[in-house]
């Protein structure tokens, strides 16, 4: 059974303008996203900025209330759960944020930061909480005497370890990682990625792993979903997606990644234009529209729900982007 099932998730925001702040336009940040996640599995989510990956992340842990669609966690519908229910569910699902400097309270000591989940969930005695938080520090590879220090005393990579320790505190089954390494240097990035893999092994964690760096996502994930303008355009096992991309956007993304190997320098097929705005997105296939594909018109009005082309390999059946 899936740990997490997201069906047709939509997150629309009104864009207000004019004197009376009327909602004149709709920003479709996430527009019909479905996926599922098994225990101990990692689903990677990639796409350019503004494609809605972070909105998906925040909806999954219910920091946002989706406009439409359902989110089932451990078989229960949490789409409309209230604060009380959510508190219970959040023991099971946690989040690691992009910027560890901004997601740790600068006025709290590391001890306070790590004990807070226990305080909120009313778990343990003060002495137990201290014991648990030192154990967490040990687990993520930080010195145990860090409890009395403040976030500013740590480097970016160490702060991210603290963020991970906090997410681990309640022994969750799912951790949503929103760009966990994009603020880190390469040498530190590898350390944090290894830590995440180790923890996944030890605690059978499921990750929803979001990043804009396709090579990082590919490295961390069992399956990868590629998002474009609020929709998943392709979802496949990680190696399959890299070896055999089917959607034109996935191909373009893969092609744009600079490889650290000068012998493989190649002519690249550059994408033209920018990521379009999710406010009033084009009809039909958004990517075909950006590419001014001659067959884009054919995608208007047809059902673009993902189809399974090969076992586990799902693609938007778009006439202009998929051969």
């Amino acid at each position, binding site marked *: 059974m899936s740990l997490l099932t997201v069906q047709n998730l939509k997150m629309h925001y009104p864009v207000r303008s004019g004197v009376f702040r009327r909602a004149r336009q709709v920003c479709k940040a996430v527009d019909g996203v479905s996926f599922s996640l098994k225990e101990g599995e*990692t689903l990677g989510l990639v796409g*350019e*900025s503004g494609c809605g990956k972070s909105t998906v992340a925040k909806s999954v842990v219910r920091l946002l209330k989706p406009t439409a669609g359902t989110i089932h966690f451990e078989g229960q519908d949490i789409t409309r759960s209230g604060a009380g229910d959510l508190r219970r569910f959040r023991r099971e699902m946690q989040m690691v944020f992009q910027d560890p400097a901004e997601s740790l309270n600068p006025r709290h000591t590391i001890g306070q930061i790590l004990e807070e989940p226990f305080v909120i969930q009313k778990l343990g005695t003060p002495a137990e909480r201290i014991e648990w938080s030192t154990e967490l520090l040990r687990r993520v590879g930080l010195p145990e005497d860090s409890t009395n220090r403040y976030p500013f005393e740590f*480097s*970016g*990579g*160490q702060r991210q370890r603290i963020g991970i320790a906090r997410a681990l505190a309640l022994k969750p089954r799912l951790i949503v990682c929103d760009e966990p390494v994009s603020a880190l*240097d*390469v*040498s*530190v*990035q*590898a*350390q944090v*990625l*290894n830590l995440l*893999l*180790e923890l996944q092994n030890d605690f059978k964690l499921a990750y929803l792993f979001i990043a*804009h*760096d*396709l*090579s*990082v996502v*590919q*490295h*961390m*994930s*069992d399956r990868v979903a590629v998002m474009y303008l609020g929709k998943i355009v392709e979802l496949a096992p*990680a*190696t399959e997606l*890299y070896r055999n991309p089917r959607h034109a956007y996935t191909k*373009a*993304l*893969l*092609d*744009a*990644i*600079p*490889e*650290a*190997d*000068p*012998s493989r*320098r190649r002519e*690249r097929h*550059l*994408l*033209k234009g*920018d*990521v379009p705005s999710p406010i009033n997105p084009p009809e039909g296939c958004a990517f075909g529209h950006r590419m001014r594909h001659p067959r884009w018109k054919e995608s208007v009005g047809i059902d673009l729900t993902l189809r399974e082309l090969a076992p586990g390999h799902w693609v938007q059946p778009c006439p202009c982007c998929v051969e």
Partner: protein
Amino acid sequence: MKKRLLEVRNLRVGFQTEQGLLTAVDDVDFTLECGKMMGLVGESGCGKSVTARALMRLLEQPSGRVLGGEVILEGRDVLTLPLEAMRRIRGKEIAMIFQEPMTALNPVHRVGRQIVENILLHQEIGTRAALRRAVELMEWVGIPAPDERINDYPHQLSGGMRQRVMIAMALSCNPRILIADEPTTALDVTVQAQILDLIKRLQKDTGMAVILITHDLGVVAETCDDVAVMYAGRIVERGPVGTVFQAPLHPYTKGLMSCLPRLDHPPKTMLPIIPGIVPGLRDLPPGCRFASRCPYPHGAEVTTNRQPWRECGGGHGVEACACFANTI
């Protein structure tokens, strides 16, 4: 015959702080040849941006200052020029583009005016001709409908377009050297590919030399001719991109290259890592600065004695730390 355009010799830059004088760039040497693209790579805090700012004499004042060394641009030492002469070099001979074009552009002026300003500063032409030139430049850097975009404010443009405006501005006076400080870090990969492609194309068109500062080894491998790897204020290895990436010598360069996740590797396997973190500027040893993270066995003397520089032929040079020097 290769022509040396810019020579940096023993450059040292420090910042006066509450904790005393911190040396951010310590003894940096490199040569930039005409029409070449050199990558300056390293992690944050390694001194790559400070080096670039020192070349432009744009160090943060009053704390930052050059402690020693020379920057020779066609026979003149840029570091000792009077300010007035320096102002003529900046923007005209050496131009610079920055990471975040939103903060580098003035938000309350139209982009056209900002391009024109630079042209009028360095060239003796009228406003109208300068405007025409600005439109041409914007077209050249691939901004669609430039005669309309010229009246836009920076916030009306996307990140990629803003970076193109920055590039147009930098190239308005045909500089001989372009310093690009993390020009694509704030951009998406697809837009990054566009901008890098643009910089390469413009470089070919104009024959200018480019110093590309980045933390992304992939970007260097795809675009640069030469590369210099910096660590904690020093260049630890430099040479042609092909040689350095194929056969890196310094353990730091090796570590950096192996710890990158690659698309063709099997997923969910442990990556080789460089243990530890970059040492702070306050506690840098006089010798090898990588010693505390170095995987090779080494004695204490490598941290107390400055390790010699060794040229290995073909322009490939490395700080030959005793821990690996006998293997070269």
